[in-house]
């Protein structure tokens, strides 16, 4: 019996969302009174692996076969299933992101294990697994129960937070899973990295702007604000803005774009259509800045400034700059 967590890395370094999901998995392992095993795919140094112990991993398994360098959903699911079976996992935990969303449903089928995605809280019960998840695109939550002895959860980034809980005696075992050659036909033809960009779904702080900005040329102050708020922050936008082509589609937040749950969400010049509000309802704190005191966003916000973005945002940027320089 164990809890098994997929510890994702990027170019050999673990991400913050990985430490968060390890922290969360540790909490479940403690509830169940079992050990926590982390599964790692790809080239990660022993020193980096040891970081997983800080957040409670008792041990880790690492598969470094060259065929795993490219992310192929089926191959990764094959490898992680073999690891999870090897440690007799009864709970398997992923971060609710690109990789997790691809791999977890396949493992659900392979292991006949109920899968709850978009999980936002610690389980109410581990056996049977009962847990709260987002549904209706942010408009509601559901409490779901697994009808199977093994369950899989994927945790919404920022829903639990990173919690240090050092485990003693951590060790990494190298593991060579049996892979099928046929998947190698799926190949990456081209790759481009956008250096230093935090994905919208994982950001801790989001600076979001809408049609109130009037033109794509006015995003400079929004980007400046995002930079002032640090590497955990990125920019995003409302649907009309991405539909107009002012901003790229991957920045669209709302019911049919990203459903987000940052610690802090700035809504600048966005009126607050029901579809947009649904997409941001998981945010811990919302600040709305709008010229219209009747804008629906103020009903969903914790803090509000009634005023013109072109007047308020530059002042706010200056205040943030002063504040950050004192931290």
């Amino acid at each position: 019996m164990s809890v098994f967590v997929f510890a994702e890395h990027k170019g050999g370094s673990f991400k913050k969302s990985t430490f968060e999901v390890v922290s969360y998995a540790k909490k479940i392992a403690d509830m169940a009174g079992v050990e926590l095993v982390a599964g790692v795919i790809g080239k990660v140094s022993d020193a980096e692996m040891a970081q997983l112990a800080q957040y409670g991993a008792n041990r880790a398994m690492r598969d470094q076969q060259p065929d795993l360098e490219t992310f192929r959903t089926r191959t990764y699911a094959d490898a992680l299933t073999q690891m999870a079976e090897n440690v007799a996992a009864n709970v398997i935990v992923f971060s609710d992101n690109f990789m997790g969303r691809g791999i977890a449903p396949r493992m659900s089928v392979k292991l006949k294990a109920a899968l709850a995605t978009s999980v936002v809280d610690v389980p109410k019960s581990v056996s049977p697994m009962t847990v709260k998840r987002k549904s209706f695109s942010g408009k509601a939550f559901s409490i779901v129960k697994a009808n199977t002895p093994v369950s899989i959860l994927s945790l919404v980034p920022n829903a639990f937070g990173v919690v240090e809980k050092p485990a003693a005696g951590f060790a990494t075992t190298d593991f060579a899973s049996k892979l099928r050659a046929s998947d190698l036909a799926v190949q990456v033809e081209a790759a481009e990295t956008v250096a230093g960009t935090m994905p919208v779904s994982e950001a801790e702080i989001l600076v979001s702007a809408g049609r109130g900005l009037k033109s794509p040329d006015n995003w400079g102050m929004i980007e400046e604000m995002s930079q002032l708020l640090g590497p955990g922050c990125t920019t995003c936008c409302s649907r009309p803005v991405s539909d107009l082509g002012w901003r790229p589609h991957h920045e669209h937040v709302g019911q049919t774009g990203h459903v987000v749950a940052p610690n802090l969400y700035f809504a600048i010049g966005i009126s607050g259509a029901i579809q947009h509000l649904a997409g941001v309802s998981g945010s811990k704190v919302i600040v709305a800045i709008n010229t219209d005191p009747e804008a629906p966003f103020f009903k969903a916000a914790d803090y509000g400034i009634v005023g013109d973005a072109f007047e308020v945002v530059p002042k706010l940027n200056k205040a943030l700059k002063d504040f950050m320089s004192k931290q």
Partner: protein
Amino acid sequence: MMKVLVCISQVPDTTSKVRFKEGNTQFDTADIQYVMGPYDELALTRILEVRDAGTPMEITVVNVGDASTENTIRKAVAVGANHAVRIDAKPTDAFYVASQLAAFAKGQGFDLIVTGKEASDYNGNQVGEMLAELLDIPSISNASHIEVKGGKVVVEREMGGGKETVIAPTPFMVAGQKGFAIEPRIPAMRGIMQARKTPIKVVPAVPAEHLLTVESYELPPAKSGCKFVPKDQVDELVRLLHEEAKVL
């Protein structure tokens, strides 16, 4: 000729107010308008675009649902799908739905299976990958673009601050997300007439397990009210975010 299966769901319109009944154990369907799942609609639209751009395709659209979903299925035909299938089952958990789709698709030689990343009501983000696993074919979910070149599928995916273009032989499954297509297609009158004449093939459900059950629903807690800060006191806002909300 490429044989394509597009799996669509039917969901409450995105403007719907969500309410529950029977002690928050059931979704209240009163006054709810149903539409094709927005991501499924984008997936279908993109496939039609690829076909129109010159890849010969035979497109079958399939839905798991009761007879009330037939208008949604007809809309898919009206915009250009060749065949329509309804699997007569109540779509409950993702594994059950994927099992129905797999039982239908097995042995029919679909080269490409396409769907939206998730239904916008239960947001499982599971059915596409589960179906691919049940059919034992490779896949990409949350894809942002697809093309067909020389019989191979070319897919773009955005993963954690980067973008990759992946090329894969068929059979393959792709689940599309935002950006897969830009605007959904609006059916033309000719398409609507055509859709009326196209029979929807009804397939009986197969026995399958329910791995996950919804016990109850909750609405998000109401906000306690917005604290307004005068526009010339932005320092005060920064102070509140730091000291009161503790998010800076």
